[in-house]
């Protein structure tokens, strides 16, 4: 096994092994646990960095393992995969730091961090999967490893949320499996191919392919929280904040959106999909989700619920960009995969920090919190403005490309959707900012436990500042070589190659 | 009609009677009896296939099979009866709960 074939496996192992070891640690061995976690995360970032450099220089990293007769498990680092692996690897490190601080002193931490690492492993697998079978294997692994995290607290409410989560995700994966097996029956074994792998199929199978497309999108749409399959996401808010951050920014939702990208671009191919006539319905569905999620977010008082509905809305930007024909919208959709992750994780870090430090769970309790925790709220503000699409933040780049792409494609209604969505984003984020910065504190905070020299435990504060900085950086330096935008352009260019 | 056909018919008759008794009778001892009668029915069918008329020697293979069958039957019967006695001692009944409930 050469280095090039080993690398994708090593990327998985760098979180799998620490995860498995952590299960067997005793509860009080928190130093060993943290060390293992951080070591795994750093090693992973290093490995991903090497891979990133290699892929940029057109090296091929690929691992195969025969799984079924005629079907291999294939892990391969392509440009799209690198986008998600880099995002996940980076955010895993900051989330780990955040989680260590957040969960300090609470029970079952070995279990938590064990599943946490497995969850990241599954996400890496999803990113590197090079055919639908491999994608499905890790997609399911993700379901199974996130369930214990969702019900981590063990309260009746958490158990109920876990049940909802399972009902949605398992039903989704059942549909997905059906679609995958069927597609293999129709098309034979194939790998992800830029520009699509199905265009050789004649018109007699187009009817079947329509159904299969619907099945696949429904399957990945559950995790991507496309309306009406989004029901689990707000409920899953009972999970601890690091889990929410993971669900929304790094793993689950992202896996679903990533699946949409893979299915449209590399299974069907955007041109073939457009010929089939499936892109417009998908775009409509995404638009519906964007508006619906935003509308629901406006009326939520619970901060995490508001953020959850915001995710429902924002993730569909990706699907919208992907489903709109034209390379510019594609760039917007793909780059939003990264941008949404960075922005949303910042928001969740801040929400978790507020809850942990001051016991704040609702927007109405945030009066004047900007004075008490200015750094946290600065981070929050940066991310929120990014979400709204204020330049030069990351979100602006996404929306810009989406908008230009819509114009290019002659789909004016998308502009309207984007505008409405931005207005709604402002409608649910600006009041928070107003409350936090400009209102006076109503009295004592519910429970105040600052730890350390800063306004909050540094492990809770630092991650949000780092990611907030990234929100600005990805916007400001969008045109540099290693920026997400450059990668997105690369991917889109290959997809639209004649 | 020859002896083979006659005893085959008797065999299937015994099997049916046994099966009917097995299903209809709640008492476990009777179920065991019924199983034995079903077994005898199968033996009769097999033995009839061995019959090749009064002049020719019969086929010894079915005879051996039936001998084996008889020994298997007695083993199963002895075991079933021992189990039945334990159930009777433990529950005071010699039938299965769902049968007596009816």
């Amino acid at each position, binding site marked *: 096994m050469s280095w090039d074939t080993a690398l994708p496996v090593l990327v998985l192992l760098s979180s799998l092994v620490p995860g498995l070891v952590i299960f067997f640690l005793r509860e009080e061995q928190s130093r060993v646990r943290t060390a293992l976690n951080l070591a795994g995360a750093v090693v992973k970032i290093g490995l991903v960095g090497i891979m990133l450099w290699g892929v940029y220089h057109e090296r091929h990293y690929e691992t195969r393992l025969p799984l079924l007769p*005629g079907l291999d498990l294939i892990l391969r680092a392509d440009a799209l995969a690198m986008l998600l692996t880099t995002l996940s690897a980076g955010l895993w490190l900051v989330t780990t730091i955040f989680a260590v601080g957040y969960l300090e002193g609470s029970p079952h931490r070995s279990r938590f961090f064990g599943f946490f690492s497995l969850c990241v492993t599954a996400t890496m697998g999803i990113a590197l999967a090079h055919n639908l079978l491999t994608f499905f294997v890790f997609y399911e692994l993700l379901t199974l490893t996130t369930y214990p995290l969702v019900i981590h607290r063990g309260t009746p409410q958490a158990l109920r949320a*876990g049940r909802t989560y399972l009902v949605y995700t398992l039903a989704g994966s059942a549909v997905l499996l059906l679609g995958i097996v069927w597609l293999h029956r129709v098309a034979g074994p194939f790998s992800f191919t830029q520009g699509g792998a199905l265009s050789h199929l004649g018109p007699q199978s187009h009817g079947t392919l329509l159904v299969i497309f619907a099945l696949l999108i429904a399957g990945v749409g559950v995790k991507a929280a496309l309306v009406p399959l989004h029901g689990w996401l707000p409920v899953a808010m009972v999970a601890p904040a690091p889990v929410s951050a993971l669900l929304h920014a790094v793993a689950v939702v992202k896996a679903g959106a990533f699946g949409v990208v893979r299915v449209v671009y590399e299974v069907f191919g955007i041109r073939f999909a457009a010929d089939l006539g499936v892109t417009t319905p998908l775009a409509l569905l995404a638009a519906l989700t964007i508006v619906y999620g935003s509308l629901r977010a406006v009326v939520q008082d619970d901060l995490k619920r508001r953020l959850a509905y915001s995710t429902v809305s924002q993730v569909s930007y990706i699907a919208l960009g992907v489903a709109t024909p034209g390379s510019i919208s594609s760039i917007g959709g793909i780059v939003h995969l990264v941008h949404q992750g960075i922005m949303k994780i910042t928001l969740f870090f801040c929400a978790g920090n507020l809850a942990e430090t001051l016991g704040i769970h609702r927007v109405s309790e945030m009066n004047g919190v900007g004075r008490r925790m200015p750094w946290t709220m600065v981070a929050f503000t940066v991310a929120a403005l990014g979400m709204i699409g204020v330049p030069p933040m990351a979100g602006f780049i996404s929306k810009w490309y989406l908008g230009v792409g819509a114009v290019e494609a002659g789909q004016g209604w998308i502009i309207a959707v984007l505008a409405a969505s931005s207005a709604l984003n402002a409608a649910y984020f600006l009041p928070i900012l107003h409350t936090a910065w400009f209102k006076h504190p109503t009295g004592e905070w519910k429970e105040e436990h600052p730890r350390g020299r800063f306004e909050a435990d540094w492990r809770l504060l630092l991650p949000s500042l780092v990611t907030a900085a990234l929100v600005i950086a990805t916007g400001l330096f969008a045109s540099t070589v290693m920026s997400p935008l450059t990668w997105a352009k690369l991917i889109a260019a290959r997809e639209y190659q004649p | 009609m020859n002896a083979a056909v006659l005893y085959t018919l008797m065999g299937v008759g015994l099997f049916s009677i046994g099966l009917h008794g097995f299903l209809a009778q709640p008492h476990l001892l009777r179920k065991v009896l019924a199983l034995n009668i079903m077994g005898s029915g199968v033996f009769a*069918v097999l033995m009839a296939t061995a019959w090749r008329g009064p002049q020719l020697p019969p086929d010894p293979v079915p005879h051996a099979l039936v001998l084996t069958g008889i020994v298997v039957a007695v083993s199963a019967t002895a075991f079933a009866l021992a189990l039945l006695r334990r159930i009777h001692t433990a529950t005071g009944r010699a039938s299965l709960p769902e049968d007596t409930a009816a």
Partner: protein
Amino acid sequence: MNAWIVWPVVVPLAAATLSVLAGQRMARVIIGSATVAIVGALAGLTLQVWQNGPQRHVIGGWEPPLGIQLYADGLSVVMLWMSTVVGALIGVYALGYFAHDSGTTGTAATGEHGDNSELFWPLWLFLWAALHALFLSADIFNLYVTLELLGLAGVALVNLAGGQLALVAGMRYLLASLLGSLAYFLGVAFLYATCGVLDVRMLSTRVSAHPAVWLAIAVMTLGLLLKTALFPLHFWLPPAHANAPAPVSALLSALVVKASFYLLLRLWFQVFSVVLPPVAGQVLGILGVLAILWGSVLALRQQRLKLLVAYSTVAQIGYLFVLFPLAGGTAWGAAAWSGGTFHALAHACAKAAMFMAAGTMMAALGHDHLHELAGMGQRLPLSMFAFALAGVSLMGLPPSGGFVAKWLLLDAALASGQWWWGAVLIVGGLLAAGYVFLVLRQAFAPLPADVRYRPVPRVMELAALSLALLAFLLGLMAIPPLTLLQIGAPFVGGLGTEALP
């Protein structure tokens, strides 16, 4: 001596004899070496089959039709591995189980049980031998004897639990088992009367569309369905499997029901295939579907862990029978055949692990009421983990063995245009998730303070975990067994997607 084929039968029989004669301590040595010997012989046999195709062994040198022949093809070998590996790990588990059990008023018993647990070993060895004999025999009457051997050993093992429930369950099991054997025996008599041979291979060339053959097929199938506990003939299974001692439950659910299924497979596809109309397979398939639904729904309604697992067996048996309507066409027959048999394999590992894990929890708590298992994830994390991994296989999620089986069956269903069988597989998987998570969510519930808990031997947890891991990872090593299954299979050809141009 390269006749490896006989030793999987002879060795456990010899070990059973010796273990009765020897003392307790010697018995362990005997059983241990017997296990090693069986694994060795099986490895030899596998190599032979792999290299030279199906193996035959003419017992006593008397060629069929006069004598009896042993026959091993890929299917037999896979089944033998299943029973050997699962059986051996159950044996390891039983070491801990009975050590834990003796001297205390533990699990299932009324307090009067105890030293008859030493009978577990000879009975278990006899059961093992009976399974292996059944997987290797190529003579329909000899198969009848092995069926009886298997049935009696199974019932005797159930009764080891003592106690009223186990006795009654054992009796119900015994009666069902005997009735099934007798029906099979009647079929044998009719087949001999019509065809004049007992050898499976010769029979397959002589059966014709004749009333007596029809009848033989019908009664043999019914008898074997009763023994396999296919809905609606499953009534005896849940009480017997739930009330037996845990290692016995594992043996019965994982292996014993598979034996009669295996026999049915052989008869249908290798003896009667010429005379069976396709509609017959559809009937079995429909019963399988009903079993999946009925078993799952009842599993969801159980209050006791072991009953839940037992009803899950009723449901999982249903999957095996989805094979019958699908294994017909040329393009997808191989996928259905491999999928069905692979499911038997995966279910054996998963279900044994599940019963073992359930038994461990029961041994620790003294009961198995579902709603009082809260916090088990903290008390017995390994067992809970084993249960979860086994559950993943039952749900058919990757990378478990259950996933591979489901994929292949689904593939066959879609390929044959009978997508509704595939839909049932999917629904069944979701229902399985329902009852598995019913248990798993208890693991995360907070641990009540006042629960009495007895420590259990570590070996029990480890044995269950190894089987569960095997079930979970079986999908990653599916190629060798799937290739083996093709050797001597009625449907040869590319599997799954390879079948397409």
